[in-house]
């Protein structure tokens, strides 16, 4: 890959998804943005070359490590579980907004209750990763991703049910 040529295409294609992934993973807009950008900086630093799928997988993996390595992620997640984003342009009533915030809180808490592998698997799949790519990222066989995905979703649903019961 010629960096000066292909970097922009790579960035345009991957950054929005990587940012969303980091945001869902970290539950913190600052951390998400930092991690997504730092992954790209490392890509440039290390002069990583390759095809788009491989580079995408590399970026998500690095971003995952960045998020994991930041000890403050967990404490921020805990802190931010109670803080919900206000979406621009929202025209909902105060009651609807309250309900939406409560639902966001439950989703975050449910996600936080998952094992890291389940959380990573769910979020990577949401970003359109193939089973092979997911398998490479979490260290399992591609043939088992379907089963692991079903289990991860069930655990998430259970966690959501628990949150709704509390």
């Amino acid at each position, binding site marked *: 890959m010629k960096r000066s*040529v292909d970097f922009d295409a790579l960035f345009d294609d991957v950054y929005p998804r990587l940012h969303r992934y980091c945001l869902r993973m970290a539950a913190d807009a600052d951390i998400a943005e930092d991690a997504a950008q*730092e992954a790209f900086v490392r890509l440039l630093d290390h002069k990583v070359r390759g095809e788009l799928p491989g580079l995408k997988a590399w970026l998500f993996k690095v971003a995952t490590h960045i998020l994991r390595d930041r000890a403050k992620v967990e404490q921020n997640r805990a802190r931010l579980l109670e803080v919900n984003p206000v979406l621009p342009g929202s025209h909902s009533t105060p009651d609807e907004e309250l309900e939406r915030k409560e639902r966001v809180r439950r*989703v975050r808490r449910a996600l936080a209750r998952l094992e890291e592998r389940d959380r990573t698997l769910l979020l990577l799949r*949401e970003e359109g990763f193939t*089973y092979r790519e997911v398998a490479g990222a979490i260290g399992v066989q591609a043939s088992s991703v379907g089963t692991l995905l079903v289990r991860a979703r*069930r655990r998430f649903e259970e966690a959501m049910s628990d949150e709704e019961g509390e």
Partner: protein
Amino acid sequence: MTDHVEAGEIQAWLDNELRGVEAARVQEHLETCARCRAEAEEVQKSGAEISGALRLLDTPPRRTLDEARWEVRRQWAKSRGRGSRRKSVVAAAMLVLVAGGLAAVMPGSPLRSLWSNSGVDVVPATELVAEGETDRVGVSAAFRDGRLEVELEGAPAGFGVEVRTGSGDRVQVRAHSAARFGSGAGRVTVGLEGEASNDILEIRVPPGSGEVLLRTGSRFLLRWSEGRFELAEGLVAEPLPDGVRLQVPGVSEGP
């Protein structure tokens, strides 16, 4: 083992991750088994609900894509500056012109055909190459979305870039490391300060600008006019699939 297919297989089939006989086996079974069909619907519904739940967590990025890319390049330039502040001299300066972004914002631009025909159109410049060149500086430039980005590598203190416009268009220049700016009629100058440094200059040029001249030090490098690049005589051009790379013999003092 039952005759039914497992949820994981159903999931893989729904995700189009099964091939050949495996995909056919699951599909045939689902066509005849109401129980597994119900399971498939349940798996699909669950996936959609979870996707919807996760979307609740999304908030728009605070930075636009362009701003985020810019920030990445700024951080990278900064890290390179820390790591290789010492390379005040590089073996060969390079100028990379990327035409794709420019062509994208200028439908019908002759630039596209220029590159696609691999015809690197080197036109003798009207300004002469300065004598007394000393250090060589890595210079790369890329046009995208009507913006010319210039990266400097190993630039010595006082190294400068000058941008001139022939039509009086407004040109915006940003630099991240210490720099001094100057301006005049149709002209913007940027001089780096301090030790040898790396930086990215962002030069915003309106897509409809009639003419832009880029100089480094006392050397004229290129002119962009009516969708065409004119490169200074003496620059060795190497065609790339979507652009051209130039070997710049050398540059010296700032403007």
